[in-house]
């Protein structure tokens, strides 16, 4: 079984990876992308997953582990493996604001669209992802709201435990949510 944390960039995927690690789930991550102001506790990413469309078999390295796969890359998941996906959801206006801030800090160029157009584009993208997920009933899916994680990390940790059908360190998972940090960032967003 391969456990995937997915969602739009800046929807809380790194936080969920951090919680899974604290809960005792083996993580596939190379630490190549260092912690920064956008993700002070790290990204928990595995750089090679970006080449999933070109090298679909690389996903086999995640067997028995959890890894982060951004929503755009879900389409490239090869068949013939068992997946369980935790899909993070966050209001798109917050996602767009947070992405803009991150792009500004990275000094790169994002989509040449207004915020409203980008929200619409991300919405359309999510619709495609949802349609794709519906066509893959073999994939186990758990949707989690970012704000629910912040509000009640203990309850969310229990939900994750039930979904993954294992015994996790729920206390440790819940402690990963730094209320002050996330409250601040949400308010900024």
């Amino acid at each position: 079984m391969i456990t995937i944390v997915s969602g739009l960039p800046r929807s809380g995927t790194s936080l969920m990876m951090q919680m899974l690690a604290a809960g005792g789930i083996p993580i596939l991550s190379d630490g190549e992308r260092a912690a920064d102001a956008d993700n002070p506790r790290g990204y928990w990413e595995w750089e090679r997953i970006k080449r999933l469309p070109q090298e679909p078999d690389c996903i086999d390295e995640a067997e028995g582990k959890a890894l982060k796969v951004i929503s755009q890359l879900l389409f490239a998941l090869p068949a013939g493996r068992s997946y369980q996906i935790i899909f993070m959801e966050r209001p798109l206006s917050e996602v767009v604001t947070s992405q803009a801030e991150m792009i500004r800090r990275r000094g790169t160029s994002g989509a040449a669209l207004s915020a409203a157009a980008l929200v619409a584009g991300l919405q359309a993208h999510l619709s495609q992802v949802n349609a794709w997920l519906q066509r893959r009933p073999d994939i186990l899916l758990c949707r989690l709201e970012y704000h629910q994680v912040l509000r009640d990390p203990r309850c969310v940790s229990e939900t994750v435990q039930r979904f993954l059908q294992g015994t996790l360190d729920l206390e440790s998972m819940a402690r990963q949510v730094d209320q002050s940090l996330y409250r601040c960032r949400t308010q900024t967003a």
Partner: protein
Amino acid sequence: MPEPLAKKVLLIGWDAADWKLINPLLDQGLMPTLDDFVNHGVMGNLATLRPILSPMLWNSIATGKRPDKHGILGFMEPDPQTGGVRPTTSTSRKVKAIWNILTQRGYKTHALGWFAGHPAEPINGISVSDLFPYAIGPLEKEWPLPLGAVHPESMRETFAELRMHPAEVTEAAILPWIPRAAEIDQEKDKSLQSFAKILAENCSIHNAATWILRHEPWDFMAVYYNGIDHFCHGFMHFHPPRMEGIPEEKFEIYKDVVNGAYRFHDMMLQTLLELAGPDVTVILVSDHGFHSDHLRPRGIPMEPAGPAVQHRQFGIVCMQGAHIKQDERIYGATLLDVMPTILTLFGLPVGEDMDGRVLVQAFEEPPTIARIPSWENEVGNCGMHPADLRMDPAAAQAVLQQFVALGYIQPPSEDQARAAEVAVREQQYNLARVYLDSRRYSEALPIFEELKKKWPDQPRFVQHLAQSYLALGRRSEAKALLEQLLTFGPMAPSSSRQEAEGEASAEVPAKQDSDVSLKEPKPRPWTDLLMGIIHFEEGDMEAALACLLKAEQSDPHMPDLHLRIGETYLRQKRTEDAARAFRRALDIDGDSAEAHLGLAVVRLRQRRNEEAAEQALLAVGLQHFLPLGHFHLGVSLARLGHLDRAVLAFETSVGMLPGLLAGHRWLAALYTQPGGDLEKAARHRSIYLQMRHQRQAKTRAA
């Protein structure tokens, strides 16, 4: 709801088929099936839309809507999965095609090979996408059918077996077309491979079509063949008479390929008609013609979709079946009219948001035409892809770019990113040209402005921007732009050869020899042409003529140029010179409606009214939507005493152009004649006086 006029409808698409090539073959008895078909049905020109690019056109045929509405805007679109490009897909079409509407109404419907048809749509029947016939990989190795090429998926294996691989094209298939094939050095000349590829692809589509006709129930089938277009792009420069610069030896080898393509399609038509049976209404159309005579271009513009310069503005239409006239010509048809006509054949309403009209003159009796505001609002399964799959590819590309910028996605390679950027740019360019073609200049303008801003060294963007300014009456801005362009010096477009060929390759077979070379378009003739138009509009006829004649020296083959020269002479009251210019335009393009219209005006000035009527009739026959054509037809008919017909012509002209002051004045006068309609006379007089008053006020204010 009206009664259906057809039990079944078979729509056959022959890309680029042109009467100019067909007629001599009919005369020689070399296309017997089509000869019999037109003798028992109607035939005519089918005016195309601009830009003349097949994916846009075939989707306008299938939807009855212009490309800005249906959303297919070119050969390629960004691929949101890879960051590169892909052939334009069916998920990018925003509106229902004929097979979707018929699916919605429960008809058994099949669609094969249609441009931008991949992935195959889940219609009520079999759908075979345009990627179905392409051979990926050699015959001896695995030759997989692309995912999504056939709907339903259960038919996948059956249809995979129906494909023909280019390697299966044997000597026996080649020699009737190219008897001296053995003389070809295939190491140097790859034309034979290109030939085999086109032949195999069209056989694959034909096999699929005939299989369906043999084995499946059906009410409607649409099948598209790209063969004529591809054979013409690959071999038209070898078609007789031999073009300057074409080696004699090669000419002799390949000179029969184009005619062979038409004869081959005639044979396929025969099979389709036999299998379809007698109770079928058959419509055969092409999206545009193909220059086959002295208008064949000497070179291809080095820009994306440059080979479209070989396309001619008139395709073909013929129809045969119950309630359809026999052995008659129809006039003024456009490719937007096909869809409304098919709906009427099925007794279904035409959408008021469709841009075409029913080809009423093809019917023995005028059909009853039902209408609804739009088929897009009709609820029910129509066999389109789910809405969540139909994402605007440009928006998807922007989202991808956002993810790349955030560092979550591998950036596409430089080539992929460049290709995607070009695809989006070309889609925008094509959209703006759609607006120009439909005279929505204010919608075209901001797009051209943006394109020029981003790519200031692309003269085609500057040219169209100048045209838009001119059309909007912003002469000084157009003039400044053209003057700036003249400082560019000899052409230096930024688009690379690779870029140009890359975009074109979706439609045009690879050109392995250099007989027709890519070449830089010349900016000077059209710059002078546009400057001439500006002077003309400013009322400076001398300066206008000087510019236009200068343009003529640079490129005497621009038909529009001679029209402008003719108009300028007309303004100078040099009627014989004007007539000569319009005749010159007709020498270049015998199907120029504007040239016939110009001659009609000349003859009216000379009081040669019968000739004027004749020329005006030719003009509106070639291009129905030509308000001034109908107006001048009305004037000539009125002078000849055919008052009823004149009224009809004037009514048509003001219907098309309500601001045509003189049309209302004529109608007011004619309706006042004995036996006329005084109420209508009063109405037109009122409109005339009101509009004249408004214009005078406007002039005073100016």
